[in-house]
């Protein structure tokens, strides 16, 4: 198993795949979180009735396999609109909304965890709505939401393995390409899996630690 015919350039090839995985994850999580906070605050602010269209829109991203979302958006942009958009952009776009859909739920949960009385007290002190959000709600909600948000980001990293379907060669796809060539599936898959594990495991542990530490008080 360990006498491999893998060369240095193959390692470099895998590293490039890993870099794409990280890049897609960072871009999607960054923009997805911003969007998700926007959607989450909006939905909380306007109530369930007026928020229904947003809820429905975001629910779609959570009820359809990511693979189909990617194929569908890619087909819509490429075949229907005849736009020349790179697979990388499509992948980032879809994953951004995918992240936003879950993030909006987390944000809503975080805001709801802030006691109403605390917020009324803030408004009674003469704070504006924005100041209340910025100085009272944001710090308190972050404590509740951060562990779930960490879980979400790791989930997006793992789900980014599916962007191969829009011709983006991320880590698992590069592993797959090497397997086809070298015919050493077990060895290569373990390397690929180990990469995800090494990134995901410590961060997941950190999330668990924060959750435990912040939930006691």
């Amino acid at each position, binding site marked *: 198993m360990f006498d491999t015919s893998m060369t240095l350039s193959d390692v470099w090839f895998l590293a490039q795949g890993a870099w794409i995985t990280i890049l897609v994850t960072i871009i999607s999580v960054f923009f997805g979180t911003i969007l998700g906070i926007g959607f989450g605050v909006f939905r909380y602010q306007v109530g369930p009735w007026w928020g229904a269209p947003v809820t429905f829109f975001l629910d779609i991203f959570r009820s359809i396999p990511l*693979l189909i979302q990617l194929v569908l958006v890619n087909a819509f942009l490429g075949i229907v609109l005849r736009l020349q958009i790179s697979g990388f952009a499509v992948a980032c776009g879809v994953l951004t909304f995918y992240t936003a859909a879950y993030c909006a739920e987390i944000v809503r949960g975080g805001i709801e965890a802030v006691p109403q009385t605390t917020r009324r007290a803030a408004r009674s002190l003469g704070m504006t709505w924005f100041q209340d959000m910025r100085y009272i709600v944001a710090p308190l909600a972050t404590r509740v939401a951060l562990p779930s948000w960490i879980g979400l980001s790791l989930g997006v990293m*793992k*789900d980014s393995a599916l962007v191969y379907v829009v011709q983006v060669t991320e880590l698992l796809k590069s592993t797959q390409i090497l397997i086809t060539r070298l015919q050493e*599936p077990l060895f290569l898959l373990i390397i690929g899996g180990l990469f995800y*594990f090494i990134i995901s495991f410590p961060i997941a542990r950190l999330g668990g630690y924060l959750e435990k530490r912040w939930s006691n008080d």
Partner: protein
Amino acid sequence: MFSYTFQWNQALNRLPQMLDGAWVTMQIAVLSMVLGVLFAIMLTGFRLSGNKILSGFATTWIEVARNTPALFQIYMAHFGVASFGLYFSPIASLLIGITFNNAGYLAENFRGALKAIPDTQTRAARSLGMTPIKAFGYVILPQMLRISFLPISNQMVWAVLMTSLGVTVGMNTDLYGVTQDLNALTFRTFELFALAAVIFYVIVKLINFGARLLAARLFRY
């Protein structure tokens, strides 16, 4: 508005085939969930057993399942274990992969649920003369399943969505596989996958609805 002519009939004509695929998808998802819950209970038991080897095994399973992509787990079941001379058919690989994943996530949920059950209950059961296994099975387990009902139904949704990954190991009878094959025949990518998306959406909504009905019936006190 678009220079593209939509041909929805092309997709709608294939609806029966796609619904057959959806049925296969449901079967795989349900089977993987049933097995997943059983394995998760086993893993939870291993963790509680106090045996170092058993709990180490359970922890490894859970951490690998939770920290690697589901696609990786399916690849491993299909291509990885082939190195040991074990060849699984696409449907078996898919089932193994999803079950492995389900069991890992569910076991972690069960652990959270266990925290909500007071220790005193185990002690009370034990002092009534129950063996540790009986105490777990009759006292702890029913409460644990009840507390984690919502996570279980969420995991069921995940299982349905994960079946679409079977196509990567050559599965072509589930909803995604059927759609992919039809796409190769007709090149109506957008229409076909839009229809598949609608079917998936309906399935997920039905599961959520069913879970809510079930919860209302099971948990009225």
